[in-house]
């Protein structure tokens, strides 16, 4: 287990170093997230709907589409110069490869979210204050779930025609349970509702994470077999 974790960290480190050196993908993803926030704001009738009423939707639309864009890139980089073949030839168990890719994607998506969150507070004038801790926890729980599924789908989609189109078609249905839970929790947190109203949705997020991280780890070798 220790060795698998070390290998996973090495793979994640390799991905993140490559991202840090070019920065193009990361900057584009951040700007994309900011643009989604802007679009959601302007796709609203300001006389009918105050910005705050739409805030949870805006946040989760941004996180969902930002994650799709980020995940599209996850295996595209491995495809160039047949880097994936090199990884597959290395004595790395497929599960460790999956875990490494998952960690790198979580770091990437998490950073995009970390930049988008202050922009969201700014654009939608959200009184975050007391809700910040809860919101960070909810974001982490929801992100782990859909990035886990997104990582395995990204590995598949990159080897098909229309990869950029296929990934959202496959992944967005899987984003629905975490988004329903997270958006519901976000609006309750911003309203300062009691914890007793949030149990059900929190349980849903935790259960989703457990089921889909486990299942994706088990199924990943089937995607990588040659």
């Amino acid at each position, binding site marked *: 287990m220790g060795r698998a974790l070390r290998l996973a960290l090495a793979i994640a480190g390799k991905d993140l170093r490559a991202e840090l050196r070019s920065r193009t993908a990361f900057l584009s993803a951040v700007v994309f997230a900011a643009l989604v926030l802007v679009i959601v704001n302007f796709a609203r009738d300001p006389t009918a709907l105050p910005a705050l009423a739409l805030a949870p939707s805006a946040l989760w639309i941004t996180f969902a589409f930002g994650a799709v864009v980020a995940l599209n890139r996850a295996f595209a980089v491995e495809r160039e110069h047949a880097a994936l073949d090199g990884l597959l030839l290395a004595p790395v168990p497929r599960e460790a490869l999956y875990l490494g890719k998952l960690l790198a994607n979580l770091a990437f998506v998490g950073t995009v979210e970390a930049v988008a969150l202050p922009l969201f507070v700014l654009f939608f004038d959200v009184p975050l204050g007391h809700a910040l801790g809860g919101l960070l926890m909810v974001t982490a729980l929801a992100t782990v779930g859909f990035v886990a599924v997104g990582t395995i789908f990204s590995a598949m989609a990159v080897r098909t025609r229309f990869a950029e189109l*296929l990934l959202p078609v496959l992944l*967005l249905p899987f984003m629905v349970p975490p988004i329903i*839970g997270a958006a519901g929790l976000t609006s309750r947190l911003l309203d300062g509702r009691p914890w007793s109203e949030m149990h059900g949705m929190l349980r*849903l997020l935790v*259960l989703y994470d457990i089921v*889909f991280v486990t299942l*994706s780890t088990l199924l990943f070798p089937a*995607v990588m077999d040659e």
Partner: protein
Amino acid sequence: MTPSFASARAAVRRGRIVTAAALAGMAVVYLLALRYTPVEAHQGLAQKIFYLHVPAAWTALLIFSLMGIVSVIFLWLHDERLDLFAEASAEVGLMFSAIMLTTGPIWAKPIWGTWWQWDPRLTLTLFLFFLYVGYLALRSSIHDPLERGRFSAVVAILGMLLVPFIHLSVYLFRTLHPKPVVLKPSAPSLPPEMLRTLLVAFGVCLALYLGLVMMRYGAGVAERLRDAGGEAGEVPDAA
């Protein structure tokens, strides 16, 4: 039995017979629904769509679960017949989920007063439809049959587990659908005529599924043989 063009043709032939029988059965279901079952007190004749809508929904859900289970076995045994069966099932399942999605709003308009409602079961069927479409889109964009089989099996298995999550999460919204009237711990709360007609309709839908899958499976086998034969320079026997 090793797949051959003769066995593929036989499967298509048998499928045609079963499909024809199922379509005749569907006519019987219409007759039963219109002449045998009582008119529902509150909904009137609009309720008759129940005998198509509910069996189609059950069948679509059953097919998807079946695809998930078959895909688990496929990843284990790597028998391409299982993959062909899953592919055939997905196309028929897409048809049943389309039936359910079109009959649903037609029924909802007179009874709920709206074509669409984000009700848990209606939403679930919409996502079932999306999953079928995604599954088939993935299949059609991969050329290598082995890779296609493994990738689509992964999607089917993940999808099978997504279905309860969608149901659970949408349930945290609200529901307009009637409480279950058949599949529940106590005895079904339907008049016996309605229940019998419903079960006949479900049987007919299953037969229709079986017939269409046999035809599509036979066509799939022939397709594989043609592709394989093309590479080996072998000419298929005349149809």
